[in-house]
């Protein structure tokens, strides 16, 4: 115990030790930093901090950090690629990186199939096995006669990190909970059939079919399949709908988002052109079977 030592001595040696340590390590560190240090653009960290960290990959990069690196260091990467972040994040990223501000067009996912097994869509066999769309598709292309239709085993809902998709137990079709969907597109990649698609949240309608067979053939196995009758094409005032490969497709860039869309008024026999509630916060999917059953006689009449 330092009983016999004078306080002055303690203070002096303290200062000495500290100074010695400080100087030697300080030099060592400064030298190694200079010799071996790796430069990291502080901008990357700043941008990274602003991103929502959903790691959804919706921007096209592996994760938020990768997008931050790309947008901070490359001129050709736009600042508005983060869909979950929306306009706010886009504006901040643009400001940080000194790029021109661009609006984010928020997008939502829709289900491009309305074929319900045993109801309006024919089935070719009974599938038994893993609850996995890929697995079902490997066996004779799935149990539906339609080779473009939804398989209903929920790969999309399992891929969704936001709990925005679930399979309706009655229709076996996915249902989107619009206010949970952030438009990341993970479900789109998970679907082996390409039944899911991202459309602008401002859209008013969508065509719930992907089958490119001829109308006469489609009619045989699906009552909810696009017949390529072109009624909707003719109804559209802004020429946003066209029929290609026996399937009507909406191109949303010329679409005027009419307040009362004319395309929804046409007598679409299979009811494949459906209203899209968009950002309204409601769930979207195929209407429940009773609704269709009421419509079917009307369509036939």
């Amino acid at each position: 115990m330092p009983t016999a030592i004078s306080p002055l001595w303690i203070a002096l040696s303290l200062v000495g030790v500290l100074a010695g340590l400080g100087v030697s390590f300080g030099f060592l560190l400064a030298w190694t930093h200079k010799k071996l240090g790796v430069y990291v653009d502080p901008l990357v960290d700043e941008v990274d901090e602003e991103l929502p960290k959903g790691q959804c990959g919706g921007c096209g990069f592996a994760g938020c950090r990768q997008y931050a690196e790309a947008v901070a260091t490359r001129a050709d990467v736009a600042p508005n690629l983060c869909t979950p972040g929306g306009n706010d994040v886009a504006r901040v990223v643009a400001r940080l990186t000194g790029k021109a501000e661009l609006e984010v067009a928020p997008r939502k996912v829709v289900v491009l199939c309305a074929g319900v097994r045993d109801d309006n869509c024919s089935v070719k066999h009974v599938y038994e096995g893993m609850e996995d769309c890929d697995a079902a598709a490997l066996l004779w292309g799935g149990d539906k006669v339609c080779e473009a239709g939804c398989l209903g085993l929920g790969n999309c809902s399992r891929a969704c990190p936001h709990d925005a998709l679930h399979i309706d137990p009655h229709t076996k079709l996915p249902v989107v909970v619009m206010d949970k969907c952030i438009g990341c597109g993970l479900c789109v990649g998970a679907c082996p059939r390409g039944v899911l698609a991202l459309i602008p949240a401002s859209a008013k309608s969508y065509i719930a079919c992907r089958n490119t067979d001829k109308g006469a053939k489609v009619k045989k196995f699906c009552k909810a399949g696009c017949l390529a009758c072109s009624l909707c094409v003719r109804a559209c005032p802004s020429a946003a709908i066209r029929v290609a490969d026996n399937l009507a497709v909406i191109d949303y860039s010329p679409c005027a988002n009419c307040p009362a869309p004319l395309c929804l008024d046409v007598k679409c026999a299979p009811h494949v052109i459906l209203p899209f509630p968009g950002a309204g916060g409601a769930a979207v999917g195929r209407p429940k079977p009773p609704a269709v059953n009421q419509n079917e006689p009307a369509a036939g009449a």
Partner: protein
Amino acid sequence: MLEYGALFLSAVLVNNFVLTRFLGLCIFFGVSKSFDASAGMGVALTAVMTIASFLAWAMYNLVLAPLHLEFFTTICFVLIIASTVQLLDVITRRFLPTLHAMWGIYLMLIATNCIVLSVPLINVENGFALGKSLVHAVGAGVGFALALLLMASIRERLQYAKVPKAFEGLGIAFITAGLLSLAFLGFSGMIPM
């Protein structure tokens, strides 16, 4: 010789620093998510600890004790360790960038890791000579690495397990550590300290 062996085994198994003394838990739970990072961390930590123990021993026995500055031990040791780690950080960032990326914030946590500080402190407390200090440091490092690797391999397997939501991540890691520690109780009494 036997004495050194017993000290080493004691530090590795019987008084394992992680499982019976609860030191280095931040790294233990943080890094053990990945097996490869754990292996790297185990080696790095053992190295840092040995170097730091040597420097600390020298500092204490050559500077602090003669000057009767024992109360100054903690501060000095911490500075020594922090600087050693800072060096290691710079070197790995330059030469082993992938390892550096994996270690992430945990490399900096070595600087402020309990094990690294506690080993020199325990050495001083027990009045270990240089040889014993180093054996103790290496033993602590190996014991830590062992626990880390066991934990990492278990957690890799747990990735495939259907762990309940509430336990995911840290919860199950603690339960696992508890059971590991329960198993290590089997060594108790084997080497009297």
